């Protein structure tokens, strides 16, 4: 059953009784003590603070809304694109009682919110050339990742540390050539040009200091927990914020650090490392998926899944055909 927006509001005000994993989250509230809500076409969302980070928490307003984003949320776990922030489905997250006092459960969507301001704010604080360059960079990064947002507009962009991050991937497509964000990017550039036209006249006379970047690598990601994933000739590794090597570039692939853990791929398989590069889960498995919200690692071997804890101890036998998070989504299987 689809909950009302009012039910979502009440859940945000008593998260300890309403949320499975976000019990200690706090909603940003207005002067009346009510959560600040925002609507998109198929979702209602609220900004929350959880473990000293900001997130957007979204409730689908009809069952089909979640089906549409399942592929996106799953595919994003495999994409190494610094412009894209964590976006995942929290299965069975919202608990509520209907009018008959029956317990109902619904999935929610959680997206990490980088600290920063909106597009409009950036128009007032940044030079036009800076913003246009940032839009160019974002367009390139999304193209390289095969990610088409399909709803890029000022309200869906956040300006943080000298770059734009797109938000709300509810309409996104991944790995398609049939859609493009080109028109949206052009409209955004037009907004920048018109809003900063006076500044543009003087840009040439202003000393322009580009945002410091990590250089000397084939590719560099964004800082996560003080470490930046980089790709060199020898593979993926991690450097600190001053570009000093921390974990040698030796992996076929590496994800970003969350709660002190990062998924990595070697020739032997996938594993999980800590901040010193030590294997917490050896890189011998087909798939390793770490969920920082629960500190649970889902591991697949010979097509069967098991769960490991944060320290690498196996919690369950290898014995199901579906990862735990998939089981929740597909109980009929």
């Amino acid at each position, binding site marked *: *059953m*689809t*909950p*009302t*927006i*009012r039910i979502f*509001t*009440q859940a945000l*005000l*008593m998260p300890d*009784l309403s949320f499975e994993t976000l019990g200690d989250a706090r909603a940003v509230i207005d002067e*009346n*003590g*009510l959560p600040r*809500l*925002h*609507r*998109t*076409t*198929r979702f*209602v969302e609220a900004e929350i603070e959880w473990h000293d980070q900001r997130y957007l928490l979204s409730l689908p*307003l*009809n*069952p089909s809304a979640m089906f549409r984003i399942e592929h996106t949320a799953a595919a994003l776990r495999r994409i190494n694109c610094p412009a894209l922030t964590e976006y995942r489905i929290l299965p069975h997250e919202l608990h509520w*009682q*209907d*009018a*008959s*006092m029956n*317990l109902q459960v619904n999935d929610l969507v959680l997206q990490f919110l980088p600290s920063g301001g909106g597009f409009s704010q950036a128009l007032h604080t940044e030079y036009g050339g800076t913003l246009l360059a940032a839009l160019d960079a974002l367009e390139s990064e999304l193209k390289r990742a095969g990610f088409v947002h399909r709803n890029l507009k000022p*309200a869906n962009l956040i300006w943080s540390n000298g770059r734009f991050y797109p938000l709300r991937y509810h309409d996104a497509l991944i790995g398609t050539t049939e859609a493009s964000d080109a028109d949206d990017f052009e409209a955004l550039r037009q907004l920048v040009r018109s809003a900063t036209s006076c500044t543009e006249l003087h840009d040439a006379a202003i000393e322009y200091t580009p945002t410091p970047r990590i250089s000397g690598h084939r590719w560099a990601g964004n800082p996560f927990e003080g470490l930046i994933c980089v790709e060199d000739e020898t593979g993926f590794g991690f450097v600190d914020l001053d570009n000093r090597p921390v974990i040698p570039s030796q992996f076929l692939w590496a994800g970003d650090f969350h709660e002190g853990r990062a998924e990595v791929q070697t020739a032997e398989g996938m594993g999980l490392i800590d901040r010193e590069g030590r294997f917490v889960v050896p890189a011998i498995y087909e798939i390793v998926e770490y969920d920082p919200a629960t500190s649970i690692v889902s591991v697949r071997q010979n097509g069967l899944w098991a769960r490991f804890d944060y320290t690498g101890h196996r919690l369950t036998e290898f014995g199901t055909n579906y990862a735990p998070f998939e089981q929740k989504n597909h109980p009929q299987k």
Partner: protein
Amino acid sequence: MYTQSITRNHRTAFVLLIDASGSMSEETVYGGRRMTKAEAVTGITNALLFELIERARRDDGVRDYYDIAVLGYSGDDEVCSLLPDGRESLTISELAACKTTVHTEVLPCRLPNGELSLRELPSPQWIVTKATGQTPMCEALRRARDFVASWCANPAHAESFPPVVFNITDGEATDCEDDELLAVSDQIKSLRTADGQVLLINIHISDCGDSRTIFFPSADEADYPNRYASLLYECSSEMPHAFDDAIREAKGPGALPPFRGMSFNASAAELVAMLNIGSISIKTE
């Protein structure tokens, strides 16, 4: 039919008819709590208004997706608008801009150990209802009929999703015979836009002894405890097939259409959420 996207150019209308008669001072059990029927109706009404405002909220503010009319009926055959300044209707953005009082609602919540706990939560109120006098429901339905007829006749609304009329009552009309009530209900249901006929949904608040919740009943569920509820069932719209899947999703796969636009102790906001009215638009303007 019933597929028109609700947009600012194709807005729809919600009409709420609120029974504020003396019988509404009786007690009922609603949402697990004992309260007067008037308090239950006030809660249902404000919850629906909150739901509609939030469904219309976008990054540029509350968009005018809906027109809202709220009529109370009570006293000596009195039917009057309960909206601020007594206006016949407001756009949803006008309603959102109205000053509200935020009162504290006490909700019973189930703790993980199974015990019940009471939590105080802020709850905005646009409408407050009283409980006095008689139940001129027929006159209220006539007023709703006239408003909806005028609304549908406006060329700007010709293509719109049709208006939805919610009548929230304990069911005891005092100003008409049953056939009169059925007749005016049929007149409302016969009004239409190009997208479908007007939906008349009756929300019946039960007496204290019956706290069960029924929504969108099919014929075999219509075993109502009193004749007023049975009459309201007859007055309610048969829900269009376009909503069958949504209703079955809420009621369970065993539910078989046709369903009636009626509920027993369920809130209007829940019904709107079930039907996803106001969010059926795939496009955004």
